[in-house]
Structures are given as C-alpha cells and as structure tokens.
C-alpha cells in the first residue's frame, strides 16, 4: 500500500490530490508504467517525464528510486517557490 500524491497541473490532469495504490512496483518508473496503463488521465499526466519531478517519502528523488519500504510518493512539476 502506497500513498501517491499529485500537485499542481499533475493533480489537475489526474483529477485528485492523492490516492492509495496497491502495487508490487519495484521502482518509481515501474509505478508510473502501472498507472499509465490504467486510464488515459494517467497517460496524460505522465506523458513527458522530463517535465516531472518525484519525491519519495518527502525527499526529492528520481524515477529509478526503489519503492521497497516506501510509504509516500509524490509527482509534481518543477517547483516555483520564492
């Protein structure tokens, strides 16, 4: 069981801010592939991975990151703070 969170336009394309996903995905990239296969809205959100950033358990990470023991994964566009 994994909490998957979406922010900014990723959240808008997927249509919800968070969901709980039951997955055997070994890495973030595997999780993305699983989600994309589900419904077109995921395909739309994850169409260009270079436009996305990922955080694993609230730490900025990358798409190769393993998911073993992870509780929370978040997808979002590059940050625009300040």
């Amino acid at each position, binding site marked *: 069981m994994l909490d998957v*969170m979406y*922010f*900014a*336009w990723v*959240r808008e394309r997927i249509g919800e801010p968070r969901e709980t996903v039951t997955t055997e995905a070994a890495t973030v990239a595997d999780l993305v592939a699983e989600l994309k296969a589900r419904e077109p809205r995921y395909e739309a959100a994850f169409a260009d991975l270079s436009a996305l950033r990922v*955080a694993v358990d*609230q*730490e*900025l990470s990358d798409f190769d990151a393993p998911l073993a023991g992870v509780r929370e994964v*978040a997808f*979002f*566009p*590059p*940050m*625009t*703070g*300040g």
Partner: protein
Amino acid sequence: MPTIRVQSDPFSLGDEAEDFAKGRTDTGAVVTFTGIVRDTGGMSRMEIEHYPGMTEKAISGIVDQAMERWSLDDALVIHRHGSLAPGERIMMVATASRHRIAAFEAAEFLMDYLKSRAPFWKKEYGPDGAEWVAAKDEDEDALSRW
C-alpha cells in the same frame, strides 16, 4: 535556532524584521529579503500550492545548510501559500551573522534554493484564465554557483 513558518496568513515585514534583529549583541549584520507578488499583465491573483510536510522538511534542510556554511547566528524563512493579490508579500528571508558578506550570501543562497527546491507551485489568474507558472532554466542554473 532558525525559524521556519509556512502559512496562509499575511505577515508584517516591519514586525518580523524588528523581532529578528532585536536583542542581538554579537551579531554585526542582519539581511532581510522580501518577495512581493508581481502583476505580470492583468493578473488578479495568484494561488500558491504546497506539499505540507515536505515543504517544512525541504526548507529546514536548506536553512541548515546555510546556517553551517556561513556560520550564521540565526535565520528566518516565512513562505505563504493560498490566494495572494499583486502587492502582497509572498515570503521573506532573514539572516543574522557577525559579518555582512556572510549575511548577504546566505540570504541569496536561501532564495536560490527556495525557488527551485521547496515544493511550492504558483498559478496565476488573469484576463485569459489561469496558468501554472513554469520553472525557469535560469533558476535551476542559479544553484550551480553554490
């Protein structure tokens, strides 16, 4: 101990700067920076979204780096989220150090990292609808100087 506040409420620049500076006897320099919502062409408001939990952690990590690298006496980061109109203050940074150069440099470092490593996203509402603000390459490039 540095102070980090992530809030939707407005803050008083004067009060925050005064509170931050007062009672210091061995700090030679306090630098403050304030970010203000800029109207980029008929913009009525901006919505700032953030990632509660990660936001505080990310800012805390950035502040810890600055504290150590410039041996700061203290630091303050306030960053707002929610709906903001042009002219409102989005955020402020303050640094306290024995010497001015360290205080200025640390404030710039904090600003550069807050821009692209703190999980905030801005959406601008204007006459042609709403649009997410895209991150700029130069903001990412700015990190390389540190």
